[in-house]
């Protein structure tokens, strides 16, 4: 029996010829990281052991959630991180002014390569599967263990093969494909499993859209999301100075075993909106019959804060104004994205429209700061979760959608298709 790409990576790193779903293996990890919320507990684990980190080059500490420090407690958490980094002389740390959202920053800066085994103390670590790595989120204690030993244990997951066919409609992006998919299988539809995204429509999908899709694999309960590397992957890495002799390309065997195969014709998918309070409450935008008035629109996060996302938003916002009493908050995910958007004139488009632009941070996505919702307020957001209380008040309502739909909705003051604003 052949193996899936996920099995192959785990087998390689566990030093085995073959691994089977359900088997538990101890494997060597290639990259380990944590953020300002999860790092302090992991750091404490390493300190209590009285050891150094296993490999300074393979540890990254990224203060992105509540930075620039939102309050005294957050500042103290960041200080724990910074002190540890300085004391151990760790190279992979980004100060405010350099830092971006971890899952946007790491691929952008060339830290992610195909075939790597990656663990991060953040559930959206699955993002990095877009580059053909096996990447999964864990808690702080697991990361402390990985920081100290360079190892982690894994239950080899069953894989679900998603086969996307057909041509995407105008405005339909990676975000729509993944919201549609989660809507189809549910928030526990891939629990403990690997989501392998395949098919012609994936082969044509730009890397940033693939990152968005793998990012939300966890919203279906998955252990990882993964895309086999191809020309688009090679090109993305080349742009970061990584030539193809620096990594191997693994693919799933033709006779690999899948727990199920799910075919999706993307030509039938229209822009998607996930209703409160689950990412699986996805509907096609034309199914929305009653007006959903909004108080806030948010474009950013590890899901949709990359340059292509800001370009999509700018296409809609150019020459338009945000509706009265609506707040449009735009947060480029990294400093590089910020600078690029500035260079391309996107900031002028956003500012002319009446949006506010923040420095890179996770900020409002998890209800940290920079855009907290009041009781009864409605936000349409490009982020990944619309749980009760996720963006502030537990009496608020969050709808998830793509950057173009969020931008259009900010202009209209209600959730709307981009074509409606541009006609």
């Amino acid at each position: 029996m052949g193996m899936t790409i996920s099995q192959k990576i785990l087998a390689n790193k566990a030093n085995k010829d073959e691994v089977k779903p359900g088997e538990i293996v101890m494997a060597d990890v290639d990259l380990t990281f944590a953020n300002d919320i999860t790092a302090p507990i992991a750091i404490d684990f390493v300190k209590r052991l009285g050891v150094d980190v296993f490999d300074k080059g393979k540890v990254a500490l990224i203060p992105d959630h509540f930075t620039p420090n939102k309050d005294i407690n957050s500042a103290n958490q960041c200080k724990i991180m910074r002190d540890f980094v300085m004391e151990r002389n760790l190279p992979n740390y980004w100060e405010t002014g350099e830092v971006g959202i971890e899952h946007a920053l790491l691929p952008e800066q060339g830290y992610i390569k195909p075939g790597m085994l990656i663990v991060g103390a953040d559930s959206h670590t699955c993002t990095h599967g877009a580059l053909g790595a096996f990447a999964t989120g864990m808690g702080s204690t697991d990361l402390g263990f990985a920081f100290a030993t360079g190892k982690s244990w894994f239950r080899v997951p069953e894989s679900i093969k998603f086969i996307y066919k057909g041509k995407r409609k105008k405005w339909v992006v990676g975000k729509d494909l993944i919201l549609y998919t989660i809507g189809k299988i549910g928030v526990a539809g891939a629990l403990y499993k690997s989501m392998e995204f395949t098919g012609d429509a994936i082969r044509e999908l730009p890397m940033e859209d693939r990152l968005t899709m793998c990012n939300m694999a966890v919203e279906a309960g998955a252990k990882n999301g993964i895309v086999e590397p191809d020309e688009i992957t090679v090109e993305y890495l080349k742009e970061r100075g990584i030539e193809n002799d620096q990594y191997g390309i693994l693919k799933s065997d033709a006779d690999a075993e899948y727990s199920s195969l799910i075919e999706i014709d993307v030509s039938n998918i229209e822009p998607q909106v996930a209703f409160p309070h689950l990412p699986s409450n996805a509907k096609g935008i034309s199914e929305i019959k009653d007006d959903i008035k909004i108080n806030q629109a948010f474009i950013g996060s590890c899901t949709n804060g990359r340059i292509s996302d800001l370009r999509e938003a700018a296409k809609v916002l150019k020459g338009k104004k945000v509706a009265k009493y609506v707040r449009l908050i735009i947060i480029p995910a990294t400093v590089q994205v910020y600078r690029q958007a500035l260079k391309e004139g996107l900031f002028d488009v956003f500012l002319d429209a009446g949006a506010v632009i923040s420095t890179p941070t996770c900020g409002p996505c998890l209800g940290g700061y920079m855009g907290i919702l009041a009781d009864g307020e409605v936000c349409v957001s490009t982020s990944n979760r619309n749980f009760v209380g996720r963006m502030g008040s537990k009496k608020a309502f969050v709808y998830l959608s793509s950057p173009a739909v969020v931008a259009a909705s900010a202009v209209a003051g209600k959730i709307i298709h981009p074509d409606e604003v541009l006609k």
Partner: protein
Amino acid sequence: MIIKGRVWVYSDNVDTDVIIPARYLNTSDSKELAKHCMEDIDESFAKEVKNGDIIVAGYNFGSGSSREHAPIAIKASGVACVIAKSFSRIFYRNAFNIGLPILESNVVDELEKSDEIEVDTKKGQIKVLKNGKVFESSVIPEFMQRLIESGGLFNYAKEILKV
């Protein structure tokens, strides 16, 4: 271990944002986290929870964020055990890692708030005291049992690193 206690009953998809909202994640202090445990799903929980209480729930308990603060807050609230139809995978690992006993069972269907149950964590049996019905929980994987026996992930790291 035998745990006898009264239950708090919740439905499916109890996510880590409602277990401990992110607005309280600017600390890792377990007592501080416990003060806000379950706040966005049940305001009475933190006020009324007693040592030895048990949380029972439906499918996909602990979904969403990887924040270990969620099981830490539950454990620091005095909760002795969480029993759900299924758990999200990160929460499952986190609970094991910090020593919060968790079991997979459908017992929630039989229970109302404040009912009492008796849990035998070793046998994986759950007895509903009001009617004597017994539920079996799924078996804990052998590797994880060994983890528990060696005293959790911290001691396991010590073994590997020989420190």
